[in-house]
């Protein structure tokens, strides 16, 4: 590979507090050679390829902490190749894959499989997670130590929370010693049993079983109490309500160390969008009130929420063409993550730098991976986007194998133009 110099870029890299017009030189091995306003054409070798970014924005490739890939077992929903295409089209270069495949990623041999398969078929950086408990039954913890050695970045039961307080205490105690990342899906099942949307006016009108915010809050409160005793690396995958946020605020202010994520769905939609039983908007945690959505945006602003995830959950049409209560849960989102996040900039809710931070360096730090930054020497994973370009989201044009987007026909502003992976141009619109 020849050297490349990307000129006339507005570089936003929160990892080094950078927001300036400048250039980026990518060396032959696909690493950042130099970056910033001081970089001149002469910093690159004379034979370097020059790419003029025409004042578009250049950020580190997005790190998505929660996406589901159908391999193994659900290839009809999504595979490594289709997920990679969707990710790159969305400016995402690193993905934490969820372990609720069939079979589950809960043992060492499955990790070997997924890493090998990913290496052959995927064209993005994959960071597999493993289940927190065997068979996601919430009873016995998986082999945290052995799995970490194999390359697992975090442990989660994805759509299930460990219900037993005793088991959770043991997990956190054990994890606090070996330093692995626990990623909890906060939901008390007894409280959320048979629930499919937020408990409130909409659930009352539609005659659907609701899920109270208490189901989420109670698990967060329990886990944070345990965290006081057993300080481990603890992350809440997605929160959905302002009540959860209050608990988080109280605990973060008292000095407890933990991190929090939110799904782009809960930031860009509310329960009213479900309308007349739109099953594509059945997600977990459920969409809640507009007040909750606004609180979550504020939560990002004040650093109570650390990361935004796509919660990319491909489901085929058959699974969604059912009465609401029976329909599959989840929406795809990896390709629309950035434009939806940019809405919060365009409607003046959040500064651009804050949004980019939650998509790049924050998740990388939580995962302890060397991504989400464009510091000298880092891998040249780069996303270039036009901040203002308007476009309309159309499911049939999305690259994911499943088309269950929750934002069909949405008008958005901001489009990914190029994505570089290890210095190579991997996507161009």
């Amino acid at each position: 590979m020849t050297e490349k110099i990307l000129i006339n870029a507005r570089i936003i890299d929160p990892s080094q507090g950078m927001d300036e017009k400048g250039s980026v030189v990518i060396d032959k091995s696909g690493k950042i050679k130099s970056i910033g306003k001081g970089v001149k054409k002469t910093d690159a070798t004379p034979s370097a390829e020059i790419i003029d970014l025409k004042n578009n924005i250049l950020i580190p490739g997005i790190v998505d902490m929660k996406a589901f890939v159908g391999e193994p077992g659900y290839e009809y929903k999504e595979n490594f190749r289709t997920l990679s295409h969707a990710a790159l089209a969305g400016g995402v270069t690193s993905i934490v894959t969820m372990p609720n495949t069939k079979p589950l990623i809960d043992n060492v041999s499955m990790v070997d499989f997924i890493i090998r398969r990913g290496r052959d078929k995927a064209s993005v950086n994959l960071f597999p997670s493993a289940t927190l408990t065997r068979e996601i039954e919430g009873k016995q913890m998986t082999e945290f130590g052995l799995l970490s050695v194999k390359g697992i970045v975090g442990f989660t039961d994805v759509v299930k929370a460990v219900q037993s307080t005793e088991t959770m205490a043991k997990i956190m105690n054990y994890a606090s010693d070996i330093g692995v990342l626990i990623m909890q899906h906060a939901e008390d099942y007894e409280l959320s049993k048979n629930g499919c949307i937020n408990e409130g006016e909409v659930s009352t009108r539609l005659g659907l079983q609701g899920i109270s915010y208490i189901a989420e809050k109670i698990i967060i409160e329990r886990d944070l109490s345990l965290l006081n005793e057993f300080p481990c690396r603890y992350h809440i995958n997605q929160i959905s309500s302002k009540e959860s946020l209050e608990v988080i605020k109280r605990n973060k202010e008292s000095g407890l160390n933990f991190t929090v994520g939110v799904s782009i769905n809960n930031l860009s939609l509310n329960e009213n969008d479900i309308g007349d039983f739109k099953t594509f908007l059945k997600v977990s945690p459920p969409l809640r009130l507009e007040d909750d959505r606004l609180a979550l945006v504020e939560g990002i602003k004040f650093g109570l929420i650390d990361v935004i995830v796509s919660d990319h959950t491909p489901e085929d049409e058959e699974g969604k063409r059912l009465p609401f209560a029976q329909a599959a849960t989840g929406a795809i989102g990896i390709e629309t993550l950035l434009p939806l996040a940019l809405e919060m900039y365009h409607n003046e809710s959040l500064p651009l730098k804050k949004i980019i931070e939650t998509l790049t360096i924050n998740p990388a730090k939580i995962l302890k991976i060397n991504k989400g930054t464009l510091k000298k020497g880092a891998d040249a994973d780069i996303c270039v986007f036009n901040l203002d370009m308007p476009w309309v989201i159309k499911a049939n044009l999305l690259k994911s194998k499943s088309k269950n987007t929750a934002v069909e026909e949405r008008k958005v502003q901001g489009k990914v133009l190029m994505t570089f992976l290890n210095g190579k141009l991997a996507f161009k619109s």
Partner: protein
Amino acid sequence: MAVKKNTLAIKDQPKHLLGIQNLSVQEANDILKEAKTFIKLNRSSSKKSDILRGKTQINLFFEPSTRTQSSFDLAGKRLGADVMTMNVANSALKKGETLMDTAMTLNAMHPDIIVIRHQDSGAPNLLSQKVNCTVINAGDGWREHPTQALLDALTIINRKGKIEGLKIAICGDILHSRVARSNIYLMNMLGAEVNVIAPKTLMPKSIERLGVRSFTDMKQGLGGCDIVMMLRLQNERMQGSFLPSKREYYEFYGLTPEKLKFANKDALIMHPGPMNRGVEIDTKLADDINVSLVKEQVELGVAVRMACLKMYCKK
């Protein structure tokens, strides 16, 4: 140059009766007006008309039902339609066929009306998107039971002359009740004031947003009411953690002659059936023809369903 009309392109969209929420006041009144004309027919010795002759009506009941199913059955037959009732318990749905597949299969038989009862809220809406005949909701999940509310309205009008200005109490398991929801919408639309009364565990969240006042106390909730609608308390609710016991429920929420005194002197009692005597209602009270409209509800149910079938069936 002569322009040839492309009649194929203009496809008649069937009308559906999916819920009271989708009705206008005018439409509701039209149905009630039409239904009145059928009351007389149903009481006469020759009950048959030929309004729906040549039309096919399929009753698709996914949930067991006695009165609603027989009521729709009779209504269709009295209008001269060919009525087929699908015994879903033995059908392909048990073999894993989805609602949509069943819909497509039935659609291929060119029915004019499908009457559907389903345990999932929204199932009739989904069905209506896939078939090109009229869909009539005969009860879906906890969401709506429009013909029940319409027959209740007709029963009230028959006795009280009008609905506007009346105060109506709906008591019991509001949370799991489609009858309650449809009645809340319809009675509000027709100008009544609606109180709902239930223990907190059986009261849906934000119910006030539907335009009612909610009470947990019968004395307060029944105050000044002209109509008292009791709901069935399903046995399975007793096994969960909703209530401590039938005895306690009856004590606080069961309708007795004493509690009825909280309502207006000439207050009338309604119940969608089937009744749990001694659980939500005193057995003598239920049979007291001076205050109970239960039998009339069943009678007028047929008339209301005839009106709905007539008005919604594609000509």
